[in-house]
């Protein structure tokens, strides 16, 4: 079984997803409000499951602009899946938000309180 990168291009209501096996990094950036969020995240979960068999470390880097409540829950479930697949000390979670976007910042803080790993809450410039 060959370990491959994953790349899902951004859509009107879905984020760009890049899973890179060299850097052990999963990046999810953009808008997320598809009707069927489970369907959207399914290949990402599969990629994580496969990657966890070959890699010890993982960094998940998220940055959202518009995000629906179902995507918030699905993203939390995805991060919890990462915690189930990798050792706690080998996980890095980054949560980026645009300057002044308190609502997105608060989602990251809520995740940090719920997850075992802390989120690195990172302020970035407006796009």
């Amino acid at each position, binding site marked *: 079984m060959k370990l491959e990168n994953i790349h899902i291009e951004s859509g009107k209501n879905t984020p760009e997803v890049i899973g890179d096996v060299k850097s052990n990094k999963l990046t999810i950036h953009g808008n997320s409000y598809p009707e069927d969020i489970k369907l959207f995240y399914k290949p990402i979960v599969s990629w994580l499951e496969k990657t966890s068999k070959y890699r010890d470390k993982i960094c998940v880097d998220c940055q959202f602009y518009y995000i629906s*409540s179902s995507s918030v829950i699905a993203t939390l479930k995805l991060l919890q899946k990462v915690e189930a697949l990798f050792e706690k000390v080998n996980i890095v979670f980054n949560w980026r938000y645009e300057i002044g976007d308190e609502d997105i910042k608060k989602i990251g803080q809520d995740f940090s309180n719920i997850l075992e790993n802390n989120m690195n809450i990172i302020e970035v410039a407006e796009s």
Partner: protein
Amino acid sequence: MDKEINNVTKVCYSRCSAIKDIYKKNDYAILFSHFGELSIDNMNNIPTKTEKAMLVSGDKKSTIKRIFNILIEGLQNIRLHGEKDSDGNQVSFVNIAKEESHYKISLGNLINNEYTNTISKRIDTINLADKDGQKKMYVDVLTNGEISKKGGAGLGFITMAMKSKNRLNFYIDKVDNSLSCFTLDILIDRK
């Protein structure tokens, strides 16, 4: 069967018209109005068009984001949970209006009568809670929530209330023994 279909449309259209009449009487500018089935294109275009109109109006970015998010939740709620009439039509409506100090969004869809009490109690509980109480409810659902088969997550109403920073007004108009027209009427301050 025609009589039943007409009655479904009649009750929903009557509520939609009544809301638009109130908007007009109170000198609101109606930005968008839709009655009928809500397509996936509507779902994607309505928030984007509203966002563009708000940018032109000079609204604050934070207000634009709050309204965009309320529309996402409300429109997905209609498409995921709106019941269909006996002819298979998912009758619904959306009105977006503005005046100097605030925006109004009304969203209507059919619900099964067996859920009217549950929905009423759910919204009443959200409306009775203060900001901290709503946050606690939100975190509770977030911590324990699951995505349902329909794709909902149980955070829609609470998210809309938190984003609007106002109570969620709602109407339930009985259509017949099985269906009612459920309408949310949300006020969002522009400041």
